[in-house]
């Protein structure tokens, strides 16, 4: 039983990690808590649904599922298109809401604005797609039996593999490319980056693109392994913030580790507390980390 909860925790933590990466970056670089970030997961999931319908019309080779998974190439293409769509939404929000506000308003105004944006985004999803749960696929899947009696769905294995691939890709991007290094520089000191010749506005757009793409992937993986519903992102607000705060704002590895800790804590907690209290676990984690180490596991300690 413990091993099963452990596996479930790692898998749900992987989704939280993908969503928390972008939230963590925007918290550090844009210096505000963006409560609308979780809605990007919802938009990513639903955008993929639209593209999935489109790619599925091609039929033939496109209609076949890949190996033991419940999906075929259309969902992979749809996921890529969802990343682009969600990035465009995020850039639109940055250019027409957050960037404009940041010139004249304080951080609290930005936070409240993000609440408003979150409401608009969530209700738009309900307006367009309705409030009933939707599934990408109606294919039946058989669980794989792993050592220790742990059962996982093939799609969950894909989810975990894709998360690892994304984290390695982002690690290489942040450490080996000039744009990635500039992102880390801007996170530390935007003014020093500016006088060094870095176009900070362009780098901030990259932050939104990476954050929104991670959110879209998280949303699609959530929809793939659970279901699509308009409250998908809303239900992940606390886990996302817990992961970002736990790991330390601006830290890629922190967001990943934070996501895994949140996922594991939520799933292991049901062994000792009633399942109905499970959503409170991320909240307790936020309180705990703020008391013990406010800057997070990988965050810089303020002197």
């Amino acid at each position, binding site marked *: 039983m413990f091993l099963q909860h452990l596996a479930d925790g790692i898998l749900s933590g992987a989704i939280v990690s993908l969503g928390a990466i972008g939230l963590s970056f925007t918290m550090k670089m844009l210096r505000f808590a963006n409560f609308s970030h979780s809605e990007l997961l919802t938009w990513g999931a639903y955008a993929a649904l639209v593209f999935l319908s489109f790619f599925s019309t091609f039929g033939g080779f496109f209609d076949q599922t890949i190996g033991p998974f419940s999906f075929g190439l259309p969902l992979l293409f749809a996921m890529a298109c969802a990343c682009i769509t969600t990035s465009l939404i995020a850039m639109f929000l940055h250019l027409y809401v957050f960037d404009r506000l940041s010139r004249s308003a304080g951080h609290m105004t930005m936070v409240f604005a993000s609440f408003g944006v979150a409401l608009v985004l969530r209700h738009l999803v309900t307006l367009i797609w309705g409030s009933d749960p939707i599934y990408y696929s109606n294919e039946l899947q058989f669980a794989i039996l792993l050592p220790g009696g742990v059962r996982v769905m093939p799609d969950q294995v894909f989810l975990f593999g894709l998360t690892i691939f994304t984290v390695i890709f982002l690690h290489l991007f942040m450490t080996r490319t*000039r744009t990635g*290094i*500039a992102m*880390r*520089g801007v996170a*530390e*000191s935007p*003014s*020093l*980056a*500016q*006088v*060094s*010749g*870095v*176009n*900070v506005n362009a780098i901030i757009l990259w932050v939104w693109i990476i954050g929104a793409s991670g959110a879209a992937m998280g949303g699609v993986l959530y929809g793939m392994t659970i279901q699509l519903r308009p409250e998908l992102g809303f239900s992940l607000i606390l886990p996302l913030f817990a992961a970002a705060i736990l790991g330390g704002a601006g830290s890629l590895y922190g967001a990943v580790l934070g996501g895994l800790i949140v996922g594991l804590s939520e799933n292991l907690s049901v062994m000792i507390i009633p399942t109905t209290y499970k959503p409170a676990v991320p909240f307790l984690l936020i309180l705990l980390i703020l008391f013990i180490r406010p800057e997070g596991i990988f965050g*810089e300690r303020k002197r």
Partner: protein
Amino acid sequence: MSSAAGYILQVKDLVAGYIRDLPILHGVSVYVDRGEIVTIIGPNGAGKSTLIKAVAGLVSVSQGSIELNGKNIVNVPAYQRATQGVGYVPQTGNVFTTLSIHENLIMGGASLHRGKAERRIEELYEIYPVLKSRRREKAGVLSGGQRQILAVARALLTQPDLILLDEPTAGLSPKAAAELFALIRDLSRDGVAVLIVEQNAKAALRNSDRGYVLAEGENRIDGAAHTLLADKEIGEIFLGMRRDTPLEKEEA
């Protein structure tokens, strides 16, 4: 290239500040020629750092002009000024402490093509071998003097015509400060125009060609560095020194 008047930098009647309608500089004018070292001195709150930040593009200008090689750059964003020939070393937070030394230099060459940036970094490693031997280390572990060398090297990546140094010797040991001034003189010999804001007025003026005294956001006195050093009035009125001691003789 110097402008027609021969100046790399010419600031004319500059009115600037951090908040609109609340200027700190009230019509300041300075110029720096190619290969010249010019020091700005003055009491706290005189607007010295504001002037240098305005030239770097970090402070908004409401009136006046900042000409770099004869071209007004007042409306040029800070990141483009770096590509147009302005190198800036701030007083605090002058390196990216969470990045490695090599990554700091990559940041300095962000506006250059990759190949040129890599060549420049190798050239700077030859000039400052201490950076090469520690290239993989985080800049946050460097000593104050080494950080200043890295900060200057980062600012030199783009081969600027003008380098702005804000309190470069603050917090440095006398030995490290002397090494830094030697480095600044080398830059000047290579034709780089240097504008320094410095609390350590004596040391800075001893290593400078000319100096300006600012007070309350306005020009007060300017002239050859050795003339300012010998002037008792400057020491007394603007730097709070004893009346009977010229700036040149007052020891730290």
